[in-house]
């Protein structure tokens, strides 16, 4: 018996998701159109594809003299052909002769071995299509290889591209060192490119905050500008107030770039021809700018100017609710006087007694996306695991950094406000 509740929960969720999927199949025509609209408003992708029948990829004929398998079902073969045809006609890197290095990199990837690409759900890679597209400045090797469609009825393969609103069969794998994904067809690559990312992450242990992008683009694209709009990464993530653009040349139909940002999706892209002409803008620049537009600070006041001079300038702080129970989350609020400031919250007085120990250095170093002058800063104190003890909690708030107005040199600053809340059990 498996006692791992984490695995059991995963199984329950996947079973529930399967029930949802089987229930939702009949609604596919209704959901396909919104999905397609999403495709127009989102940025590049590694297109998950697949098809319900195992079929040949007729378009692979041109790839290194690969033998053409017989389609199992004519209509399925046609669907698959539509999905992957012309990959070689839009990607020059697939038209060049295969080299020993291409085969070596494929072998090192393990994709050509049995079970080497389980995410294909029974599909397999076409070894003769493997090409080492480029090597990134940081040493990562980008391998492109075409894959056939998954086996009939496979639950594993990526069988549907929700954003394109259709099922696909076979396509291009973008494999970077030891990882990658499948599959993009020609239409997807021409529409948005096919991108993969790696290396994102922030870590208190000193991990990198850079994100590396690998994007496959069709012939004719000579440079790619990767644009990261202003954004707020939620749940403790960073806030980026300014756009960042990194332009990279295309080698072997692949452009790679490293952006010192954390992403949830991907960057916006501008594809340039060799003569500098803009071929395409990928992603909804207007929506991104609107969605991520940093809030504007309110007008400077006598109080805000005083706070810049003296961070301990009194500023009213309130706690809500003023009275709560052992598991109440209390919100601490005050009007911000300085944009981009950081604050330290400290309990200065807490109830005493058994089990009432509570840390005194709780703090929030970042005001978040709305931390501009004139906005209300809200910090929530969730109850400790054992619940609040009964009594009065008093806390103080001090400025620790003035943001764009400059730091405080690490020197301790007197609090600008205090407040308290009461807990009744």
């Amino acid at each position, binding site marked *: 018996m498996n*006692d791992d*509740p*984490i695995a*059991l*929960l*995963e199984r*329950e*969720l*996947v*079973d*529930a*998701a399967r*029930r*949802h*999927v089987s229930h*939702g199949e009949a609604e596919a025509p209704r959901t396909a159109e919104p*999905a397609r609209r*999403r495709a127009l*408003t*989102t940025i590049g992708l*590694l297109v*998950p594809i697949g098809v319900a029948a195992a079929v040949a990829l007729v378009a692979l004929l041109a790839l290194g003299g690969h033998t053409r398998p017989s389609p199992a079902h004519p209509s399925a073969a046609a669907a698959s052909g539509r999905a992957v045809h012309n990959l070689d006609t839009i990607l020059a890197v697939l038209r060049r002769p295969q080299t020993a290095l291409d085969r070596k990199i494929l072998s090192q990837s393990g994709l050509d071995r049995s079970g080497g690409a389980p*995410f294909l759900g029974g599909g397999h890679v076409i070894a003769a299509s493997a090409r080492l597209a480029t090597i990134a400045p940081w040493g990562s090797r980008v391998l492109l290889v075409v894959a056939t469609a998954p086996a009939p009825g496979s*639950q594993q393969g*990526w*069988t549907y591209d*929700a*954003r394109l609103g259709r099922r696909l069969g076979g396509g291009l794998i973008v494999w970077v060192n*030891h*990882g*990658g994904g499948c599959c993009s067809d020609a239409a997807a690559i021409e529409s948005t490119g096919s991108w993969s*990312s*790696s*290396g*994102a992450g*922030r870590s*208190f242990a000193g991990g990198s905050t850079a994100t590396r992008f690998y994007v496959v683009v069709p012939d004719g694209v000579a440079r790619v500008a990767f644009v990261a709009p202003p954004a707020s*990464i*939620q*749940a403790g993530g960073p806030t980026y107030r300014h756009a960042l653009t990194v332009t990279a040349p295309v080698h072997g139909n692949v452009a790679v770039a490293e952006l010192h940002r954390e*992403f*949830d*999706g991907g960057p916006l892209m501008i594809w340039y021809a060799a003569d500098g002409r803009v071929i395409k803008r990928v992603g909804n620049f207007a*929506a991104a700018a609107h*969605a*991520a537009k940093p809030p504007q600070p309110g007008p400077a006041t006598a109080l805000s100017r005083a706070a810049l001079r003296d961070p301990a300038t009194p500023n009213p702080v309130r706690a809500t609710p003023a009275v709560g129970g052992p*598991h109440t*989350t209390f919100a601490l609020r005050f009007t911000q006087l300085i944009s981009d400031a950081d604050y330290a919250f400290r309990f200065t007085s807490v109830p005493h007694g058994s089990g009432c*120990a509570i*840390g*005194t*250095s709780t*703090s*929030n*170093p970042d005001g978040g996306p709305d931390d501009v002058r004139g906005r209300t800063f809200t910090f929530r104190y*969730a109850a*400790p*695991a054992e619940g609040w003890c009964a009594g009065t909690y008093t806390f103080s708030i001090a400025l*620790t950094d003035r943001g764009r107005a400059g730091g405080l040199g*690490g020197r301790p600053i007197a609090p600008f406000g205090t407040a308290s809340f009461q807990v009744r059990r």
Partner: protein
Amino acid sequence: MEGSPDPRTDGELLVATASDPEAFAVFYRRHVRGVLSFFRRRVPTAEAAFDLTAETFAAALEAAPRYELRPDPARGWLYGIAWNKLHEAQRRGQADDTARRRLGMAPIALTDEGLERIESLAGGRALRLLEALPAEQRDAVRARVLDERSYDAIAGELQCSSSVVRKRVSRGIQTIRRKLTEAES
């Protein structure tokens, strides 16, 4: 992600869930530890943390068909659900199971081994050991490790030098590590 077989973003996984159940499994595996830790730090027992985690992911699965890709990260969306579930539970005095019931999910009985696994994954034991540290070390470790703050910022707040903060963090982590090792052996 490099080294991972699935490079899709969280948002893409949620969108794909409408047709690919495995996509949600990937999303779940990426975040279950974080969500579990999130709840474990805020509720008194591992059972409650697991209950809330299950309900959060069930609610996320229910809402996935309505999820649309957006500039905001899907992680924030997930933790928004988690906060709501936490607040609901605090109001009601128990974790809700509405989403799980609607999805027809079977209840999961927790064994002692299962609870151990949850504590291990959520870092509950380490958190308890953290609370048992001397106050100076506890504050320094919490500020550095949980709040992810710079040594300089912590030093400013604690009114000491950053090298002192480093020593406190180092000693605190060593103590926690040693006690965890002793407990395991």
